[in-house]
């Protein structure tokens, strides 16, 4: 039973990260029906900004916890500005182009950002400073879960709740929902659609940056390529939960995390990805729009 619980927790950590990144995919898709393949790179850039800021602050002798907070804030600001800029230069000019064009533009952006970071930083793995101090979990259960896992789970939960409240109760949240339903109508009733789209990119990128800093301090190393795999997994999570649905992304992330974790624990880690993607295929066969996705209505 202990073993099951341990796997449950490690799946929860993994799933939280997937969910945090998946939110960006799902929100952008919900608003402009674009799969932003550069989103994984935003996560990676968030991690790199965290690394640089943490390095500078450490040399000034700040305490670890304040470094974590400042580095996360810097990563959020930086990544959000990247998300905003990417939307403006790579997607906005193509908003009325055929659906394939912005997708290609997104892939191009992703490759560009990867290479940009590789050239400007390094292609090697670099170690990420230990920002989250180790603390011992309940006596007797020390090995079950680490401080970083716990922090990831807690932060993700807080972010999820805050985001849901934001979408439900604020004016901007309302405008976002309206834009997601029908962009033209939203425009007609006086919603500044461009601003809503920018806000979506900014929020999605900020969440990815939080994920970047957290996972980097969890595994202790980053390189320019981490965004690709995390991005693919998060995208899978978003599709699993129903792309376009915010609760769906969370659910999808957690289910994906648990699938991988239990599969590793009870079958073999050799087949981790096989199981994860088999699950995706299965769900898409029976629920083509994902777990919580709405079946698309064809506009006539």
């Amino acid at each position, binding site marked *: 039973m202990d073993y099951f619980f341990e796997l449950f927790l490690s799946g929860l950590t993994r799933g939280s990260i997937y969910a945090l990144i998946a939110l960006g995919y799902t929100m952008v898709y919900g608003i402009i029906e674009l799969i932003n393949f550069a989103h994984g790179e935003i996560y990676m850039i968030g991690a790199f900004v965290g690394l640089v800021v943490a390095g500078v602050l450490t040399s000034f002798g700040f305490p670890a916890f304040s470094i974590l907070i400042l580095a996360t804030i810097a990563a959020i600001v930086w990544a959000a500005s990247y998300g905003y800029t990417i939307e403006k230069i790579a997607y906005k000019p193509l908003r009325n182009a055929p659906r394939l064009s912005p997708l290609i533009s997104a892939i191009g952006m992703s490759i560009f950002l990867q290479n940009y970071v590789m050239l400007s930083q390094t292609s090697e793995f670099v170690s990420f400073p230990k920002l989250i101090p180790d603390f011992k979990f309940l006596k007797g259960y020390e090995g079950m879960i680490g401080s970083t896992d716990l922090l990831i789970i807690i932060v993700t939960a807080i972010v999820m709740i805050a985001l849901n409240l934001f979408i439900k109760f604020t004016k901007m949240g309302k405008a976002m929902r309206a834009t997601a339903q029908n962009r033209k109508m939203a425009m007609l009733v006086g919603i500044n659609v461009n601003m809503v789209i920018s806000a979506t990119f900014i929020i999605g990128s900020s969440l990815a940056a939080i994920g970047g800093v957290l996972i980097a301090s969890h595994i*202790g190393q980053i390189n320019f*390529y981490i965004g690709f795999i995390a991005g693919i997994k998060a995208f899978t999570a978003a599709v699993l939960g129903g792309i376009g649905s915010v609760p769906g992304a969370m659910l999808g992330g957690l289910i994906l995390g648990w699938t991988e974790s239990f599969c590793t*624990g009870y079958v073999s*880690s050799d087949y981790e990805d096989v199981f994860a993607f088999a699950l995706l295929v299965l769900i898409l066969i029976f629920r083509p729009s994902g777990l919580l996705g709405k079946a698309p209505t064809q506009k006539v």
Partner: protein
Amino acid sequence: MKRSLVLLVVVLMFSIGLMGCSQEKKEQTPAKKETAEKTVEKTEAAPAGGEIILGVPGAHSGDLASYGLPTVAAAELVAKSYNDKGGVNGMKVVVAPQDDQCKPELATNAAFKLVSDKVTIVLGHICSGATKAALPIYKEANIVCLSPSATNPPLTQSGDYPNFFRTIASDDAQAALAAKFAMEDLHLKKIAVIHDKGDYGKGFAEFAKKFVEEAKDHEVILFEGITPGAVDYSAVVQKIKSSGADGVIFGGYHPEASKIIMQMRKKTLDIPFISDDGVKAQTFIDTAGAAAEGVYATGPRDITANPLYAVAHQGFLDTHEGKEPGAFYYEAYSGAIALLNAIEKAGSTDYDKIVDALHNNLVETPVGKIKFDSKGDAIGVGFSVYQVHDGQYVEVKK
């Protein structure tokens, strides 16, 4: 009308491009023939008897040339040093290079060419595949063949090629050392073997598994592959922990190794971690930080303290304008010394006598004092176990 004009222009452009290509090709072929003829002249001009012809087949052109050319340089330097001393048993050593581009089909051609040119001994080939293709030809012709770089285990272990020797440790030697170290020095009984599913890591892990299973009272309690680049390995670490393993052997490279060791230490799993030379890198220690302390890794034995190493190194610098020698240079240098020394000791170029001399005589080379075991692997070269100590890999002395 307009469209057909455009089409015409396009066709013209392409045909010009093609012509350019074919012309280039035509120009290339005679040039190649010339070099081939040159080598023929070189080797034919060397009458057998008064000279020892040292065939050096390998990748001398193409994308793997950087593995083959250092061997030619090593052979020439060693030949020169023997010739300066008056040759081997009074015979002058002549180097006869032969390009195989590491391709098996070209390697058989190269081998036939060398055999028909009556080479005395062969230093090569470079790649395992090419070596395997060429060996039967040398065996047929009773020619000793010594490779500085073919690491594929069956080349020696199958016993099919009594004429084959090598101055580099085979792929499984490293796993054998890691497994032996884990079982005999660390007294581990239940070992978890983890790999990264890649050719190198999985090969190492499979050999390690084999060696542990062959030993009495030892078992591989867990054998699994992980996905490189995954965001988190805590489930695998959890699995190692619940399996009750008292040690981990990991096959793969340092990014995954450092993630695993960090999560192991975080989950208070303090069992020994033994890995391969993909992990024996300073980057591993830099990324894993404090978690790296105490990690074991096998790596090539340190030969820089050997005085002959300095001689070989300086010889290359002097003849190549200060450039650093490339891959397998020291293995090739040692191989050439071993071959020529064997002829000297045998007192003749007779096949059986050379083989005997290689098996029975110790010879000082840059990679150490070596002779060859019954299968043809060099005794005295290979790997050592290193341990991270105060942020640095230190050789484990027994």
